[in-house]
């Protein structure tokens, strides 16, 4: 497609609204000055630069293509984000397609200012921007019809991809109007549809990506094939701290080996040949003495020592918690522990790179295309705008595909061998060289008054710092990721102290679905349950008693209690536990019902989940994310753990790493509360409550409190 005219621009909140005629269609969106990457992507696609810097393309075939700035990793953004555009654009859902946006600051999430998929921010961040883009396009199409038929704008009604002139037989389709519309000025503040008139927002529309995913036609990073491509596998130093001394000779079956700082990439004709050759590799490694300390037992003892003697950073302080606890009628002093966790996304890490003079092209299942471009640019010694990123579907992300280690390796290999290279991490490398969810030790001291309310709450967290390891915060600063879920609790407690101590262990740590909430919700909601028991109170009534200032959380708790029929006792041999999280702009409560088929064995029979995620965009996707969050959280709660021996991780494959399978599945029931509040996140907040809900149920069933994960 070729542009026929320069963009017409109008000022918008975030930059310029740009429209352009493209052969066969019309495009509109918010644009910032063009970046090189977008320009080149545009040329590659045969389109004008202006046409690519858009959210929406309207084809003469009446197709509506929405460019999605977030990565699709299962959470449904290739549906929920186009749904926002389609609502305002007044088009049939059947005509809408999703397409990955290029890596360009233009497509940054307005909620974060970056093109990153994480923090359950996609719908939250793009909600207004995409609706505004859809509404602007709709009004330009209406104005085009007004001009075409010589009538007033107010008489032009847009519906189902057609503009009709009120009181006449005149009408024109969007495809017919697209060229005319593109010549018009872009309205800066188009009217958005009131919630009472939503046709698509709030409806369980079918996902746009599902049909391809049932036919084997969906293309993930690992499926990319480009002309002249070779395949590659990687072998890292077994210890996470080691570096490469010598790669050794090139094994038979390899076309090349590429020595990297802490790994060797083996290049061959197929992935299998590369994996086989990688097994024959005989590299030697430099393993520093410090690796000797990277053993799980040592790390745990260090954590206990730090808990006792380190000077903490204050993450939150209200009133005087230590004094309130000292003066309390009854106190608890309990310590919880969670282990390092791998991500274990179903699609192992993979990236395809092509490097030529002054240019780099990437095909990557990445949660952070801009980071990938910057990392590739650094390897190639070029500027990031010379890197084109094709964001593929992700076979799960879970926070791991935010990282760029696998991208850098693919670029290094492609640069070294002179052909495009698709790098695939063998599963053992994926498990063994993760950037793990940090371990944590959490001591909670709390006091109850004679009236059985919590008078003081003191939570001290010892955990490695994701942000410090990356150099994003200085030593001695609070890591807000580590304390997320421990601060700003929903409960009204007048004396609170939350402290953080950074554990210095050098195991690489990273963002794992729900991040700090995955550890803190377990400790906090277990401790609240212990306090309810100590007070002789019903766990839901006890929580509700502290939620008078947070009616939304109270409503979620009541909804889950009602769904589970909480006040009626479960069947003999079963018990229930509850937990609540307020995270990522949403509130989720879960009740787990457990049994014990044999001594010490936990079976989770049922889970009820209630969620208030504000304005719901697609309730079927919200339900799926709650179901998925529960299953993912349950795998971690029951069995998940990576242990280290002198910096070497185990387990390294699914034979030794148990996750929930069909036979382990509880029956899950999800209740979504109606809300007109701004949208909240749904990808992550389903994860945190399941671990404490199960632990609390187990404590009720057996009288035994489990304070360490995994539970089994």
């Amino acid at each position, binding site marked *: 497609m070729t542009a026929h005219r320069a963009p017409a621009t109008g000022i918008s909140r975030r930059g310029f609204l740009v429209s352009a005629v493209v052969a066969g269609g019309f495009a509109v969106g918010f644009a910032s000055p063009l970046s090189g990457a977008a320009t080149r992507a545009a040329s590659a696609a045969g389109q004008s630069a202006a046409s690519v810097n858009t959210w929406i393309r309207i084809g003469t075939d009446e197709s509506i293509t929405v460019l999605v700035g977030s990565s699709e*990793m*299962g*959470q*449904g953004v290739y549906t929920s984000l186009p749904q926002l555009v389609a609502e305002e654009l007044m088009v049939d859902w059947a005509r809408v397609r999703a397409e990955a946006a290029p890596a360009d600051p233009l497509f940054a999430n307005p909620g974060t200012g970056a093109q990153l998929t994480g923090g359950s921010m996609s719908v939250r961040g793009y909600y207004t921007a995409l609706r505004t883009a859809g509404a602007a396009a709709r009004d330009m199409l209406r104005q085009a019809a007004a001009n075409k038929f010589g009538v007033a704008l107010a008489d032009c009604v847009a519906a189902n991809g057609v503009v009709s002139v009120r009181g006449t037989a005149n009408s024109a389709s969007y495809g017919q109007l697209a060229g005319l519309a593109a010549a018009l000025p872009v309205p800066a503040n188009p009217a958005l549809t009131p919630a009472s008139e939503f046709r698509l927002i709030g409806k369980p529309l*079918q*996902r746009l*990506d*599902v*049909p*391809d*995913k*049932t*036919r*084997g*036609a*969906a*293309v*993930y990073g*690992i*499926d990319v*094939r480009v002309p002249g491509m070779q*395949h590659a596998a990687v072998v890292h130093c077994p210890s996470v701290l080691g570096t490469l001394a010598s790669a050794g000779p090139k094994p038979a079956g390899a076309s090349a080996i590429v020595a990297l700082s802490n790994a060797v990439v083996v290049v061959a004709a*197929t*992935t*299998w040949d590369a*994996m086989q050759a990688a097994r024959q590799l005989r590299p030697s490694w430099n393993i520093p003495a410090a690796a000797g300390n990277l053993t799980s037992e040592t790390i745990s003892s260090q954590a206990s020592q730090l808990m006792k003697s380190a000077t903490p950073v204050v993450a939150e302080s209200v009133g005087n918690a230590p004094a309130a606890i000292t003066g309390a009628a009854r106190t608890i002093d309990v310590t919880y522990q969670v282990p390092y966790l791998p991500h*274990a*996304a*179903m*699609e*192992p890490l993979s990236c395809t790179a092509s490097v030529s003079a002054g240019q780099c092209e990437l095909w990557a299942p990445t949660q952070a295309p801009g980071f990938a471009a910057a990392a590739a640019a650094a390897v190639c010694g070029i500027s990031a705008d010379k890197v084109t990123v094709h964001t593929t*579907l*992700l*076979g*799960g*992300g*879970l926070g791991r595909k935010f990282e760029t280690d696998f991208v850098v390796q693919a670029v290094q290999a492609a640069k070294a061998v002179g052909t495009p290279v698709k790098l*695939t991490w*063998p*599963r053992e490398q994926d498990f063994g060289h993760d950037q793990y969810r940090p371990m944590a030790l959490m001591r909670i001291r709390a006091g109850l008054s004679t009236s059985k309310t919590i008078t003081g709450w003191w939570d001290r967290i010892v955990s490695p710092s994701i942000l410090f390891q990356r150099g994003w915060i200085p030593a001695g600063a609070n890591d807000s990721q580590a304390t997320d879920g421990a601060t700003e609790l929903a409960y009204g407690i007048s004396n609170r102290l939350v402290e953080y101590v950074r554990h210095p262990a050098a195991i690489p740590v990273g963002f794992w679905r729900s991040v700090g909430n995955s550890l803190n919700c377990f400790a906090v909601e277990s401790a609240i349950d212990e306090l309810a028991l100590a007070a002789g109170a019903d766990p839901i009534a006890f929580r509700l008693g502290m939620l008078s200032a947070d009616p939304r959380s109270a409503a979620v708790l009541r909804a889950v209690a009602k769904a589970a029929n909480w006040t009626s006792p479960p069947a003999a041999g079963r018990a229930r536990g509850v937990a609540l999280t307020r995270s990522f702009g949403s509130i989720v409560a879960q009740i787990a019902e457990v049994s014990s088929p044999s001594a010490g064995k936990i079976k989770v029979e049922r889970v009820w989940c209630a969620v208030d995620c504000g304005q719901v965009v697609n309730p*079927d996707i919200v339900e*799926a994310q709650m*179901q*998925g*969050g*529960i*299953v*993912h959280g349950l*795998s971690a709660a029951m069995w998940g753990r990576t242990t280290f021996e002198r910096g070497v991780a185990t387990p390294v*494959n*699914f*034979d030794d790493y148990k*996750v*929930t*399978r*069909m*036979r382990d*599945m509880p*029956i*899950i029931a999800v209740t979504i509360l109606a809300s007109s509040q701004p949208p909240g996140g749904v990808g992550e907040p389903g994860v945190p409550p399941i671990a404490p809900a199960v632990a609390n149920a187990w404590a009720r069933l057996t009288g035994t409190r489990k304070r360490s994960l995994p539970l089994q």
Partner: protein
Amino acid sequence: MATLNVNGQKHVLSASPSMPLLWALRDVLGLTGTKYGCGIGECGACTVLVDGSTERSCDLTIADASESSVTTIEGLSPTGAHPVQQAWIAEQVPQCGYCQSGMILAAVRLLRSHPKPTDAQIDAAMSNICVCGTYQRVRAAIHRAAGQ
């Protein structure tokens, strides 16, 4: 030289007969709907039908499969209209979707042997891993397909 019969088509391959079927399908024949997940027959992402039975294609060599008829997800139905695929769409099963080729083929095999499977039969037959946690919808889709 080895031969494979995949989705009704005969292929002569120059790859080593000891190459796992998974990689022959993906890297030699370009049938990337069959996924690599673990390489040790644990996760089920690489499930294909070999003479109608489910096999983990990472655990089978080209030589093992050379006399057989192999069906991959691409060959289940030319248009995606197989009742199991349609049930998967109706129940909106996939999230990331990476495991779903294997899940669907495992369900197809289950329904051939048990046209009206019980939940216990589903538990026993569906050993594939889905990290997204779509199991409840997989179960619903199998029951839906069984009802057709």
